[in-house]
Each structure stands twice: as structure tokens, then as C-alpha cells.
């Protein structure tokens, strides 16, 4: 459920780091908590956003949820396919990334969780619900 090659945040985003770029998406747990995802709003290419700041919104019938930058960077691509078909995030939250960024400070990646740590974190979250 949580691929080994990704880094994770406590707000349930993932980052796939490749060189000085990273693709960003939401985790299996995030899409499950939201249920039917019906709306996605993403930033414009060229926007620079800091780690921990919201870069978009993912909404289900029931609720809306901000998505936060796992790492600081400039948006170099947005996945228009998930804007047109938000349900793709339910079907495969890892294939269907949200944005791609150019990293501003690659060292920030050290602050993110790996798959094992994130799995534990989610287990704790579920216990509390």
C-alpha cells in the first residue's frame, strides 16, 4: 500500500524524488479517508511553494482537503488528467501524481518518512479514529 521508493508526510502526501525533481501525490490512506474524490485543484506551472504550505485541494462528495508540499520547490508540471478525472486518485493514487516540482532544497527530503515509518504512522492514526 506504501511503495518503498517514495517519501511520505504526516499530512499523507508522497514524494518520488528523481535527481533535483520530485513528483508529488496523495497516499492510499489519504484517498481512502476522503472516499469518492470528485474535484482536484492544482497550482499553475511556475509557482514556487514552500514545504508545508498548501499547493492545492482534493475534494470528495463529503469534504475538502488541502494538500501540502512535502518539499519546497517550483512547480514544473501539473497532471491535468487527475483534474479531468479525479476518480483516478481513488483507482491508483501512486500512478496518478498531482504535480512535479524542481527541488529548492533537496536536503529537506531527510525530514520525510520512509515507507516503514509511514506505515507505522498510519496504524497509529487508525487507532485514534
Amino acid at each position, binding site marked *: 500500500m506504501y511503495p518503498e521508493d517514495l517519501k511520505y508526510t504526516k499530512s499523507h502526501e508522497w514524494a518520488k524524488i528523481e535527481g533535483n525533481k520530485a513528483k508529488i501525490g496523495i497516499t492510499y490512506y489519504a484517498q481512502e479517508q476522503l472516499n469518492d474524490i470528485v474535484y482536484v485543484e492544482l497550482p499553475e506551472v511556475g509557482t514556487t511553494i514552500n514545504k508545508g504550505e498548501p499547493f492545492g485541494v482534493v475534494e470528495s462528495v463529503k469534504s*475538502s482537503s488541502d494538500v501540502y508540499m512535502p518539499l519546497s520547490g517550483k512547480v514544473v508540471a501539473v497532471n491535468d488528467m487527475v483534474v479531468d478525472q479525479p476518480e483516478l486518485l481513488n483507482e491508483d493514487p501512486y500512478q496518478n501524481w498531482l504535480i512535479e516540482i524542481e527541488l529548492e532544497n533537496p536536503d529537506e527530503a531527510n525530514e520525510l518518512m520512509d515507507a516503514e515509518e509511514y506505515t507505522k504512522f498510519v496504524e497509529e492514526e487508525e487507532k485514534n479514529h
Partner: protein
Amino acid sequence: MKYTALHDVHEKMGAKMTEFAGYHMPLWYTKIREEHMAVRQAVGIFDVSHMGDLIIEGPDATDFLSFALPTDVSKKKIMQASYSAFVNHRGVMIDDTIVTRLEENRYLVVPNAATADIIYHWLYSLSAGYKVEVKNVSNKFSSIAVQGPKAEEVLQSMVDVDISKDKVPFFHATMGNMDEIKIEHNELSGDLLYISRTGYTGEDGFELIFPNSNAIAIWNKLLEEGKDYGLKPCGLASRDSLRLEKGLLLSGQDFDPHHEPRTPVETGVSWIISWDHEFLGKEIMENMKKEKKYELFRGIILKGRGIPRHGDKIYVGKEQVGYLTSGTLSPVLNVGIGLGYIKRPYIKVGTEVEVEVRGKRIKAEVRKPRLV
């Protein structure tokens, strides 16, 4: 936290649970839109045991309730149900409710979960001077809503009483035996299952009330009988999107005595008022109706992308003309819809407005609250 008699069944079925009005309730079982469409096209069942159950009885019960409600219950037939509202001395809605005349001077009142105790105490204090007893039997009874165009077929296969529309029209109730399930003796319906053709989805359907001990057997029987009809168990999320599409008020959100004080005139349900009898808050409602200055509960349909939510503001040009108290994506229309209060003259159906959704203005159109 409070639990319904079906709580463990929901968890075993893998429902996503949430706290609602102090109860641990199912939010969904599978997908919200799947559950929503099952109710629109086939049939869905909801555990609504968190709703209250009050019995009002005694020689003055009819006079008392006719004073407490804008509805003149003395005009209702036995086993006829009415949608109505409890209002305070200022005409402000405390809760909406379904009241059913069980006997000449005996009534079932079903308040919302969060307000059941409030309404019980409210009625108790109002009843001073009337020969009437107000009983809160909420904790003894469970309730399942069977909703959708196939609801009658599914339920009819389980009960011995004729529940066709001729015998049990919309907003009427009956009682009957179930083939295999013996209903525990109870003060609402004796040894029978209480069956009311009412609901909160805008579809045809029924609300069943019975003692807690019968809950699991009835739930399982419905799942089994409904299999061939596409029946789905449904959670609170689809219950909300279903009522929202039909413009049905949500107590505590679309109106609330503290946060959103509104009279039945403003909430768009003045059709519940029988003006030719005396009732609490009448003068205030009469004046409102006469002056015609009040804001009115309306629906809006977005013309652009986005999902409006509670609290979003409605504009015409620079002027704020209203705000939303509820909003969602309509699974049927596949566009953002909302319900809220709009001031005159913008309440006119078809008025072009803008809704500010997450800081962005989106074009929308004013409609009557019933959007689907």
C-alpha cells in the same frame, strides 16, 4: 460515545465510522456515490437509530401539540404523519420533526439525534397545564430507513400488511407482522413492526421503528431480501448528499436556534403552517410573511467547476446577497450545488449570482431548494 444496536454489524461490514451527534455511526460502507445512486435508482438502507423517539399522550395531547407546532395536528387522520418544526416563542426553529398521530390523543414525535433530549425537555416544560405525558423512549427503539424506488417491493416481501401506495400513501404509517422475525412487545406498536412511508432522501421509502432487540435480525433480513434489487447499506455521507439534492433541511446546520436562527417562513417550509389555529410564534411568522422582507432558503447550482461548502458567500457584483449553509457535489447532476439564505430581490429563481468557493468566484444560478 453512544452506540446503536447495529454498531457492531456496521464495523463487521467494514463501514468507515464517524461521530455524529454523540453516536458512532457509519459514514459509508463502500463509495458515497455508489450508495447515493443505489437510493436514487434502486434501494438503500440506513441505520437511523440515533434519531429520537418521543411519545406524547393524554387527553390534551392533540391540543398541546397543535399549540407547540405550526401544524394543526387536530386535522390529521389516525396514522397520518406530518413534517413539522418545533419553534420557540420567537418563532425560531429549534428542530424539525415528523409527528404521527397514532391514536386520537397519542402521537409519535421523531426529533433529530442531536436535539432529542432538547426537544424532550422543551415539550416537558411547555406541557405545564396540559393533561399530557411526554415520554422519551429513544433508547429503547432502533430505526432503519429503507429508501428508493424499489423500497416497497423489498419491504413488501417481508411483511404481512399491504404497504402499497393505495393503502399506505406518502406520509402515512401502518403496522404489521414480519414473516420470520417476532417483534418484541413494545409501547409504540405492541407486537408489530412500525412502518412509516417517510424519509430523508426525497425518494419513495419507509422508516421502520422497532425495539433494539430486533435490530440485527431486521437489518440482515433487508440485506438478504434486497440482494436481487441492488440494495446497498448506506452511511451518513450519502444520506447528506441525498437530502441536499432534494433541498431538505439539516437541523443544526441549515437552521439552528443559536448559530442560524430562522423561522419556518425563512427556511422555506411555511407550507407546514396552518394559519387558522393558535400556535407558538404565530404572530412573528405572520408579520414576517406580511412584510416580505425576510431572507429565503434557496438552492444554487454552480455553472463552473468547484464544490461549494457551508459558509461560502453569495454575491451579485460587489454586493454580498447571501451565504450557503450546505454544499456538495451532486452525484446526479455532477455539478456543485448548495443551499442557503439569499436576500430579496435575488431570491428569484434564475437569478445569476456568484459563489465564492475557496477564494474564487464561480458563476451560479438561484433555484428552489429542490435541485434534483
